[in-house]
């Protein structure tokens, strides 16, 4: 029964992906991709990875979808009438299809050839979790065992934001991005008024339980970002100016706290990014809280794009 469900899921995913490849219209492709992202979330639950499923659904499908849809709309508005979307030439397509198929085949072979029993780090991850005081092994991996990756990845996000901001025309630098829809439809306004309080609540809850149960800083951050974007899209709150001091301090605050506690480890726990055992959980949850704010802001601002209004004098 479960296998049938899985097969159907896989079939849908592949059909949607092929649709993205074949459809002539970008908007059509993006909508298919959003559906694909949601199904992907479902697939992740089938793979026993609730944390990933939440992240995938929120970021992979939702926010990425929004980003792409906005871009598509922008291009559509600016496009001249009659410039038809281009398609790849036939020969290129055939060769590319063959080459991609060969790669997929190789991958498939590799997947089938994985050793059995599978090597796994689940037991040691679980064995070491007591030292962190956490209950969710994924959070333990993200914020303790492989905290360096997470730390660098936070910097990656900030850097991407910096890169987006760097694309601002010089006279608009430091101003605010324009996110508001020209005529926000009523349902959007309604959602933007009602959803955010619940969203914030869910996010806070997620950070809190993320230590022990599925959920955590990314998931919470992306939900917060989604709420914020909703508010900005509906025009209930303007997007902040990118030069705003508070904004920048909040953005930097999460990673900075992470670094600070990491360096504190030198003094009290014998090494960088090491946590003193009794305080480990408290410190980690603290870091997560600060990171959640930073992530939410960064994700929202990444969707909002470079500023399009000159900074207020």
């Amino acid at each position, binding site marked *: 029964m479960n296998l049938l469900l899985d097969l159907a899921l896989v079939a849908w995913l592949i059909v949607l992906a092929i649709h993205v490849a074949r459809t002539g219209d970008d908007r059509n492709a993006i909508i298919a991709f959003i559906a694909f992202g949601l199904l992907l979330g479902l697939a992740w639950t089938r793979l026993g990875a609730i944390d990933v499923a939440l992240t995938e659904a929120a970021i992979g499908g939702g926010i990425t979808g929004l980003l792409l849809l906005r871009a598509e709309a922008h291009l559509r508005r600016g496009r001249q009438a009659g410039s038809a979307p281009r398609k*790849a030439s036939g020969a*290129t397509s055939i*060769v*590319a299809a063959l*080459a*991609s198929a*060969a*790669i997929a085949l*190789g991958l498939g*072979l590799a997947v089938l050839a994985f050793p059995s029993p599978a090597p796994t780090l689940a037991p040691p991850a679980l064995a070491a979790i007591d030292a962190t005081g956490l209950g969710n092994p994924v959070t333990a991996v993200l914020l303790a065992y492989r905290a360096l990756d997470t730390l660098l990845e936070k910097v990656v996000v900030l850097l991407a934001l910096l890169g987006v901001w760097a694309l601002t025309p010089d006279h608009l630098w430091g101003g605010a991005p324009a996110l508001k829809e020209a005529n926000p439809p009523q349902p959007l306004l309604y959602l933007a008024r009602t959803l955010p309080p619940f969203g914030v609540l869910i996010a806070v809850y997620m950070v809190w339980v993320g230590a022990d149960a599925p959920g955590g800083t990314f998931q919470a951050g992306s939900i917060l970002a989604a709420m914020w974007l909703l508010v900005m899209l509906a025009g209930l709150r303007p997007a902040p100016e990118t030069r705003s001091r508070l904004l920048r301090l909040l953005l930097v605050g999460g990673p900075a706290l992470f670094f600070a506690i990491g360096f504190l480890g030198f003094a009290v726990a014998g090494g960088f990014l090491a946590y003193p055992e009794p305080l480990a959980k408290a410190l980690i949850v603290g870091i997560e809280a600060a990171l959640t704010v930073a992530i939410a802001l960064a994700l929202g601002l990444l969707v909002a794009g470079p500023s399009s209004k000159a900074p207020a004098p």
Partner: protein
Amino acid sequence: MTASGSLLAATILLPLAIAALCLSSRFRARAPSLLVFAPLPALLAALLVPDGTSALFPPPLRLSLMLDRPGAILLGGAALLWSAAGAFAASYMRSDPARAGFAVWWLLTLAGSLGLFIVRDIANFYLLFTLASLAAYGLIVHEQTARAHRAGTVYVVLALLAEAFLLLAFVMLAAGHPDPNPAIRDVVATLPAAPLRDAIVTLLVLGFALKLGLVPLHVWLPLAHPAAPMPASAVLSGVVVKAGAIGLIRFLPFEAGLPFWGTLLIGAGFVTAYYAAIVGVTQTRAKTILAYSTVSQMGLLAVLLGTGLENADPGATSLVAYYAVHHTLVKGALFLAVGVLAATGGQRLRPMLLLTAVLALSLGGMPLTSGALAKLASKPMLGYGLVSHAMALAGAGSTMLMLHFTLIVARDVRDNPASIAPAGQLVPWLAVAAASLILPWSLYPAISGEPLASLIQPDALWKLLWPMLLGTLALLLVRRFERLQGAIPEGDIVVLAEAGTPAIARLAAFVERADAHLRRWPVAGLLLLALAILIGGALMLQA
């Protein structure tokens, strides 16, 4: 460090130091007047340092120097010419706004070319060889004319080619050696038994022959030497080409001998000597004729080297050095003469023309001149067979070429207004001319082992005179055919090579089109996947 060692080191370091001081703009203005002093350590070293002295400098310099007899002879003659030409340059370039830059290139070339005569290890030989080659480029293009740029381009291309041949040869020579930077002598000793012997010798001969200007690798020389300012032409033709000679002296195994390669060098040498004489006699510019004469003379040098290599006669190296020093001084004096004569007119012209003619005919072997000495000294080694006769015939060719030169110079200066060249040019010229007459006499007994008296015996004189008469006759014959004058362009077969340029341009255009195609996204993307598939497939098949 002994005094001798310091003197040897100063040979290289003093010119480099002066060049480095030119970074200061105040010093730079005075640099040309110092050119005369830069080669003095070399001169002193050649005179004072005993043969066989060596000096080692610790890492990171890894420099080791050694003075032997051929090196000392070449070093002394070259230093003399460098010094005199330096003095000449200070006067000649007086009003050239770019003379400071000229001085820097001069000093770098000087350091490289003199250092080559005394360097002992293989890496620094290459370094100094490169220094001399590349810095000479600055001298060649100094006048910034279209001619100079064409000459410079041809020169650089072939110089870099020579570098490439030599680098590979040196690396192959040193590859089997435990010391990463061995002494040249040590690796050459192992050369005859080396597994890649013939490849190495091919590369060495190609590399040095390019420098020496052996036909058909000579094309750059008649373009480059005349393009430079007069004093620079003198040192390029007099000294810098000898880098090829010292290279062959140092790197060919004269102890063990290589008969095949000896014969090959003899053949190439004669072809060069005759070919350059014949092409040279069709030329109409004095400096170009001198350049062809240099090519021809380097051919004769190659004959001497080839003979030594064929007979496994290490003594040949001293003889080659002796012949080379004769050419250094005479050719240097002749180039300076062209400069001096151009600034001279009226009554004073006649004695100067006479002296120029004597110098020119010295290359043809005129009795009592250095040319005669050099030829007589080499007679015993060449024997009395075919080679000896061919050599005499080459003397006839040289005589023909140099008479042609004298006539051209005389024609060029016929209408000069009455004046006299400044002393700053006249004195250096006379000094080199005098040295070219005296120095070979003083060295003769040591080189040939025969008393000076043997030089004035009648049969020795006759051996020298009949080729000269033959050469004179040949010239008279040539001058009957007016059309021959200017019939062959300067650099002769370089024109053929340049005809190949469109093909190269087409190839380059093809590369450009290919690049534009490869850089298209789908193509590059597919290539990326293809690489992944190729690597993956191969690894899976292996596993």
